[in-house]
């Protein structure tokens, strides 16, 4: 699956779940800092990535480095898929 498809999947989830328009979602900023998600949003996103991309998200993956922006989440998915 290409990064473009992964991006589309994640953006579609964020639009559907958090009542934002696609052009309001920054790719390189934290969704928390932008006020788009709260703590439940982080939990939901981690669960969504696991189910949508069939990858295991472990405790050590739960960091700002991996969830600090849409592009960081795509990079996490990419790494997990490559290591599978």
């Amino acid at each position, binding site marked *: 699956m290409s990064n473009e498809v992964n991006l589309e999947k994640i953006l579609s989830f964020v639009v*559907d*779940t*958090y*009542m934002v328009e696609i052009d309001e979602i920054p790719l390189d900023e*934290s969704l*928390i800092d932008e*006020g*788009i*998600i*709260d*703590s*439940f*949003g*982080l*939990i*939901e996103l*981690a*669960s*969504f990535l696991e189910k949508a991309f069939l990858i295991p998200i472990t*405790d050590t993956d*739960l*960091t*700002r480095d991996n*969830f600090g922006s849409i592009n960081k989440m795509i990079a996490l998915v990419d790494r997990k898929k490559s290591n599978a």
Partner: protein
Amino acid sequence: MLNNIERCSKCIQSKNFPKIKFDENGVCNFCNKASKSTEIEASLIDNAKIKISDLFDNKVKSGEYDAVVCYSGGKDSTYVLKLAVEKYGLNVLAFTLDNGYIAEAAWKNIRKVVDGLGVDHWVYRPGSGNYKAIARASAVTDVYRKNTLTRISAICNSCISMVNITALKIALEKKIPFILAGFTLGQIPINAIIYKNHYKFLADSRKESLDKLRKEVGDVVDDYLCIKDELINEVKEYPHNVNILCVEDITETEIKDAIAPLGWVSPGDVDGCSSNCMLNTFNNYVHEEVFGYNPYEMELSHLIREGLMTRTEALGKINDRPVEQIEPIMASLSIEKNDIIAVKNVYDSKP
């Protein structure tokens, strides 16, 4: 009060709810979206049921208790306590945060239920002045982002954060693997039925509101809403939060019937949306004044869509409010009408 406000013709979400749109039949976009996603939701709930069974069946007992149950004394957490003990066979520690506003009838329920189920019970009462200062700051300053408050009032959010953090402290200190609470779908998202309560990961999402609370109240907020590094740095595995009520297909009447044999009765001195806390009417009043909609709209609308409540019942619940309690509560929190107008202006000035 929002008696005559335009609402969805199927649920009770009103025209002031963020991002709401009505179609030509007066049906909101949330109802239209929900009718398309029911199948996905059903599959997520089925998966959650399997995972809950797996987690409880394979629990590794490292301490005295299997689960800490956040027990407010309301009908939902009473039912969760009953399920934990009788359906899942867990050895639980019930925990109640006494915020000073729990109705007397609710305390009677709490005592009857914990005795009836034979569970240990731990009550934690924050210092009254500190609790009131945090509640006041939550109500009259923009502590939380607008999107955090779509399904909960600001004071309830601070109070529930206090409950969650205290429950996590108890679980970590006593090595309890599960934290249970009386949340229903509508109050929490479907992907949050089961999750690891990873304090460090979630700390990022709490930083802004904690900083604002510290500015208003002082560092004392850390005693109630943070966990000390000494405890967190020793954590090898965080407990799971498991919201078992979310996988039960049950109506409010069925819940009340199920807990009645334990001696639980509906308290008469709270509003239609709460079965334990006397702050609720005031909290909803502030939310309506500031944002123009009731914080229970989303939760009750979810129950309507699931066929677990009628629209008439839901409207009855949000309109059932002992308004005579509002002024005394405002006085007890040192809040004046102008404080509420001021915070409304702050939120109105934000996108």
